[in-house]
């Protein structure tokens, strides 16, 4: 297990990163974030009641004390109760994270796989009409607002104005069929909105690789296009591809599904996070910030490990 010390070292490097992220986020939350006090007050509050609520929320405690309490909560995973609903934050996360994961996973995978395939194709036929078609379509895809895509798909697939074969909203998932019933339209929306970005990125990476000397050498040896593309171009491009995918994961999980969840009525973590931001629900925000930080550290570590798998030079260096 020669990799274990490497992994442990990488994870240790993540601790200062986590401390930095949580400190800056907490600072912003405390001094620039929404103040929940008045949302928790009645219509005719007295100064005494205002102070009571501020005290209950911990707003009257020194910053460093609050921050150390936050770190303790993260370390013990005792994340407290939501200021709004009174529900334990850990229950909220446990309930919403799987939903978000189930919602975005197919779209995320499909968006990347299709983007890779189309990018590869466009790179191979670079400069030709197929490449131009892919590039222009990608630009169109990138230009259309996510909101328009969602509403358009809802109208076309979910209402009597169109095919009316999928639900507009909801997440009554009991089995694979009901899952497909509810997840199909959001997945199509996610694929449509990400495909343009992915395709352009992957095409650029592949073009860069295809134009290298060793590929020309391969061509001179008479290697087939499939061999060139899959055994050499794709393999040698894996470092930037992995980087993009791994660093997308925390974003996709926490915030990428917000619009989908909101418009399709799906109770995932994106919507909960958005509500917490707009209402100043600090216990949820603190947990999400901590979780995002941890996810980034994990992504960073896994990413580094994968580098060494796909490119042995990384380990040597």
């Amino acid at each position, binding site marked *: 297990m020669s990799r274990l010390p490497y992994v442990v070292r990488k994870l240790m490097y993540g601790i200062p990163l986590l401390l930095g992220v949580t400190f800056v986020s907490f600072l912003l939350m405390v001094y620039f974030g929404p103040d929940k006090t008045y949302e928790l007050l009645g219509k005719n509050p007295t100064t005494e009641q205002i102070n009571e609520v501020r005290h209950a929320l911990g707003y009257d405690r020194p910053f460093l004390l609050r921050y150390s309490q936050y770190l303790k909560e993260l370390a013990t995973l005792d994340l407290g109760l939501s200021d709004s609903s*009174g529900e334990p934050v850990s229950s909220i996360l446990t309930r919403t994270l799987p939903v978000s994961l189930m919602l975005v996973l197919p779209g995320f995978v499909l968006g990347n796989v299709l983007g890779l395939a189309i990018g590869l194709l466009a790179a191979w036929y670079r400069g030709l009409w197929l490449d131009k078609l892919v590039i222009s379509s990608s630009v169109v895809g990138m230009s259309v607002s996510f909101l328009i895509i969602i509403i358009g798909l809802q109208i076309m697939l979910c209402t009597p104005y169109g095919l009316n074969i999928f639900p507009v909203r909801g997440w009554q998932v009991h089995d694979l069929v009901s899952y497909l019933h509810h997840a199909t339209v959001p997945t199509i929306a996610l694929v449509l909105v990400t495909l343009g970005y992915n395709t352009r990125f992957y095409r650029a990476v592949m073009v860069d690789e295809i134009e290298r000397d060793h590929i020309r050498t391969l061509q001179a040896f008479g290697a087939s296009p499939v061999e060139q593309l899959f055994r050499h171009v794709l393999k040698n491009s894996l470092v930037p591809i992995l980087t993009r995918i791994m660093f997308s994961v925390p974003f996709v999980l926490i915030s990428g599904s917000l619009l989908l969840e909101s418009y399709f*009525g799906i109770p995932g973590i994106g919507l909960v996070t958005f509500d917490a931001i707009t209402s100043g629900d600090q216990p949820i925000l603190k947990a999400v910030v901590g979780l995002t930080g941890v996810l980034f550290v994990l992504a960073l570590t896994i990413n580094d490990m994968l580098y060494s798998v796909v490119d042995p030079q990384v380990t040597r260096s």
Partner: protein
Amino acid sequence: MLKKNHIAILSVLLILGACGESPSTDSGVPAKTYRHAMDGAPDSLDPAQASSVYANQIVVNLYDTLYRYKYLARPYELQPNLAAAMPAISDDGLRLTIPIKKDVYFIDDPAFEGGVGREVTAGDFVYSIKRHFDPATRARGTWLWQNRIEGLDEWKANGSDYNQEVSGLRALDQHTLQITLTRPFPQLVHTLTQGFAGVVPREAVETYRLQLASHPVGSGPFKLLSRNSVRAVLERNTRFRSEPFSLQDEGYDPQERDTTGMEVLEGGIAPFVDRLEFEFITEDAARWNAFFAGEVHFIKVPVSQFDNVLSQRNPLTLSPQFQDVYQFEASPEAGFIYTNFNMADERIGYHPDPEQNRRNHALRCAMVKAFDWKKRNEIFFYDIGRVFPGILPPSVPEYNPEGDHSYIERDLTGAREFLLAAGWNGDNLPVLEYGFPNSVTERQIFEQFRNFMMDIGYPANKIRPMVFATYGDYQRAYSQGKVTLINSSWTMDYPDAENNMQLYYGPNAAPGSNSANYNNPEYDRLYVAGAALRESPERTQIYREMNQLLMDDCASFTGISRTLLFLWDRNVIMKPDRSFLGGYFMRFVDLKDLPPP
């Protein structure tokens, strides 16, 4: 490397973890389900925290209150709910004795001994009101009873010890309650209809504490099955008391409501549906699509769909394409929208120098005259809102349709004359901060306001937007006097004009609901005199005088009551309500025997 069966197990776990619930009763029969779309979500389901329309609509279905309003009577009429009768009131109006129904039970819950819900008693009501005066509750309805019930404020001052009695709040026996007031408060019974007055069991509060907000334990017609950020599912409380539905008792008028088919409900036992599903859909387009696709039975029509839904505005008429499918109602809002001057700001409000005070008054009046309510209504309220002078909207009996409406009529010439006479010009007009929470509509409303003022020569750069991330931040800012022009709305808590008049009562100044910091001793004197009276010609006279005082002082741009449009499936038998009756109507909702949507 993960093996294939590991991936399969992971997939199953994910699907299970992300599962929702399916609608069927215990016997496996598909549940009769009413699906209600809301344009916002409740944060807490604890009655003591049910301050929003959304929370209140759900809470009154989970918890019992002593009183409610009759389902169909308009104007609204009070009716016993958990109470067995209307209160017996002493001659001086200070003591109310309320009998409570017997054999009413809380739902079964692990918080109770043996997990079985016990009987609701008068002591539970006493406990529930005391909770509002316990800081640990984070209650939001305290103001309803503050300084009104004998001994209650002192109870809080002494540490909110539940073992200490409150002299003005006593359970005379298991089923009799007595409330003693510090001064006459004719609106008390109205406050007992609100979600805030929902009766909670002490065992549940002590078991769940703040988590009661997401784990309700009540005695209402429904109990909570599940809830998340996009929906709440309630199912029938099978232990809810059996009371035959009576059209006559609920104020039914066959002439008025002959299209709803409500006659079939006569003699039935509420609730009529097995499940209530609340869908929280904040986005207008998604809400409309869900309704049009038949996924919800009811919708408050988004303004963006008014043109689609209505064929004409006067009278409001549903488009022919919808008439066979939906029922429709235009409901006046129980409240109004207004913009206050911060009267505590010497640049525009009260000033210690009498001359400057006079000039400020002239400036305010000029601005009020420059305001164009017709355009405000036309652009933002589809021209179907009701504009009225002052704070007595058409929904209260004190409203005077024959009265002077010049306060809400645009008069640019008069406005300029006011400015000129007081020596105001573009150079010496004060800089004003107009506050609003961040939203496109709020920004548009501000721009329109500024445009109105520019018409009388107010420089655009002297009316500045002050934008806040949330309404809470905005409220904090204007409560601390940092905003000069406070755009706001008021939702009436009960159908009594007193609720509006207190908005400008001096002692309610910021951080209280008198955000204008209006301070007129004569207004305050009249408020105190009127507050002790029930609705009567004498009180009407007092309230109209107060309304006039407010307008004479030009303390506010006011006001307009929006008209809300409701649309619901023709197969649903109901009369929806979003104001005082609120969620109480849902126990009476029934569905014709057709397949669910």
